[in-house]
């Protein structure tokens, strides 16, 4: 320490420009913090789920979709009983009436057909059919909401069964690994190898067409996606040290599954389910559209679209209304699922 030369290059730049006010001299007294304060935590950080909710609610698209879905589901439950008609009651004299709502004439709900003739006054119909009627005079309002109800029901049940089968299958496959995993994965490969449209069509041809056979047909191959997601996630988790720690403590298989593995794959599972639902709705509609779906007089959105398609030129409202509803349902589910994925993805956490 003999050569001390405060050389201008080294320190000229050290002093900060924004030096705070000089502290007073009486502050120079020892005041150590006691050791308990050192281990103090900040205010409780939100739990994973709470934080995920918060993130979801910041996503405008997801929130709007959630609200719309709630409205649509509510309508599917109460809509059919909002007027005196039932979905199957035929009233031939009132066939093919365009939609008419008092007060909403400016929106096109004016009871006029494609030629601009008001069918209600021409045929002397007193009651207003909000969404019009079909060729048998059945009220389309009732049928659309009934159809939404059935479509949602089919989709939810199919998604739920996919979930159950997929989680169990994927979980077992990943957890036990080795030969069991190998065998179970080969089965999945065979199942995905067969075009699923063929499987479904064969299935429906063998069983009687109806809600039950459509659901069965959809889950026969539908669970594969969920099983793969669950297996992939579980394989990753299985090697994590907290799972090993639990194993060194002698935790049973079911405890490991319940406490350590499943809670940590819930996020991806929820997201996958949310993406399965719109796919199922679409698939049901598609089956109905090609004539393999529900049989009259039952209505689903697919059946209504198919009916409307036949009369697209003369009675466009028959196609338009159920098409708008099914589009809304699918877009909302997809947006919500997207929002959930962003909210639950651990990679997004900081």
């Amino acid at each position, binding site marked *: 320490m003999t050569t001390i030369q405060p050389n201008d290059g080294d320190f000229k730049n050290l002093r900060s420009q924004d030096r705070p006010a000089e502290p007073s001299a009486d502050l120079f007294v020892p005041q150590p913090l006691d050791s*308990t304060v050192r*281990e103090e*935590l*900040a205010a*409780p*950080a939100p*739990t*994973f789920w709470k934080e995920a909710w918060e993130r979801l609610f910041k996503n405008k698209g997801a929130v709007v979709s959630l609200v719309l879905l709630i409205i649509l589901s509510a309508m599917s439950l109460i809509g059919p009983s909002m007027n005196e008609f039932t979905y199957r009651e035929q009233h031939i004299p009132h066939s093919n009436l365009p939609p008419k709502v008092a007060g909403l004439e400016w929106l096109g709900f004016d009871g006029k057909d494609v030629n601009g003739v008001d069918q209600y006054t021409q045929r002397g119909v007193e009651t207003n059919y909000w969404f019009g009627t079909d060729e048998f005079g059945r009220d389309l309002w009732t049928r659309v909401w009934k159809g939404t109800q059935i479509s949602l029901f089919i989709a939810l049940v199919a998604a739920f069964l996919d979930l159950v089968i997929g989680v169990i299958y994927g979980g077992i496959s990943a957890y036990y690994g080795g030969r069991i995993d190998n065998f179970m994965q080969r089965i999945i490969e065979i199942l995905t190898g067969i075009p699923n449209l063929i499987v479904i069509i064969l299935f429906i041809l063998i069983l009687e067409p109806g809600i039950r056979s459509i659901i069965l047909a959809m889950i026969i191959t539908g669970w594969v996606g969920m099983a793969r997601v669950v297996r992939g996630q579980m394989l990753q988790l299985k090697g*994590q*040290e*907290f799972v*090993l*720690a*639990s*194993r*060194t*403590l*002698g*935790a*049973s298989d079911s*405890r490991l599954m319940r*406490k*350590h593995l499943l*809670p*940590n794959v819930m996020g991806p599972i929820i997201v996958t389910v949310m993406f399965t639902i719109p796919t199922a709705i679409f698939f049901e509609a598609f089956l109905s559209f090609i004539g393999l779906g529900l049989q009259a007089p039952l209505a689903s959105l697919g059946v209504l679209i198919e009916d409307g398609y036949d009369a697209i030129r003369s009675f466009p409202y028959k196609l338009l209304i159920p098409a708008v509803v099914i589009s809304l349902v699918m877009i909302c589910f997809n947006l919500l699922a997207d929002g959930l994925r962003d909210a639950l993805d651990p990679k997004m956490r900081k």
Partner: protein
Amino acid sequence: MTHELKEQHTTNAGQDDLLVVSDLKKHFRLNRKTVLKAVDGISFSIKKGETLGLVGESGCGKSTVGRTLTRIYEPTDGEVHFDGLKLKGRLDGKTKKRINRDVQMIFQDPYSSLNPRMTVSEIISEGLVIHNPDMSQKDREKRVHELLLLVGLNKNHAGRYPHEFSGGQRQRIGIARALAVEPKFIVADEPIAALDVSIQAQIVNLLKELQEERGLTYLFIAHDLSMVKYISDRIAVMYLGKIVELAGSEALYEKPLHPYTQALLSAIPLPDPEKERTREQIVLTGDVPSPTDIPSGCRFRTRCPFAMDSCAVIDPEFREVEPGHSVACHLYDAEIMAKEGKELKTV
């Protein structure tokens, strides 16, 4: 119960040895052709209350040793005597349960070793739930609070989730979890490798205190040789699935015999500029061979500066060359050195 078990499996282990491992092997079959020999026949013993350090570079099999001893992996071959129990092949339920209690593990990564969806209290009490299912909720809570205090946290932390804690605090929670079931033997698998320098000493001191208070026995796995030397009574050096040298920690540092140990020690950069400027470093050439394709003879010969013809043919025997100091190297074998026509390395 313990008494009966002791009678059933009378062991030939020494009086004060808690753990005796003989010829332990763990191989992983990767596919039809390749077998990864992670641990390939190692033997050592650990006395009650002792710390054995296990060092080596990544991929040498040191973590696999720890996981085999805690029975996360089933050993491929070999025998382990633990506290009067003879462990060989598949364990019956009773023995397994005892091992799950008496042998615990502290993990490397404080971020992945705690379940993010469980509270600290749930994490620490897991062992209690498994092993003392009759314990009342209140007693369990009390025990969790005791354990938290023991590792330097406090009871306010019990209801929090892991992501609210820092790395060092998380590692303490991991230690509390291991201690909850009152184990006799703890495998610490690189418990400080992922921590900041200023925190490492906290954890090492805590482990040492706990050992003194509770007479714990440790297997301390690490790649940081300076910390290992500090905490261990004896140190085993592993290379490619085998122990190449085992000695008391002072002896190993003062007089490393195996060329690998010598290189390893000289490769640690010392936090002392003066020493760094003056000392001679042995820098090994090349990389560690793959454990799926282990060289013939001595495993270290491909990187050894002293490799001879015999090294490629004969696998050196792991022998005690002076009391308490064993090494697996031909340089200390009179017979082989005579055959090679070279001078025997003196110990």
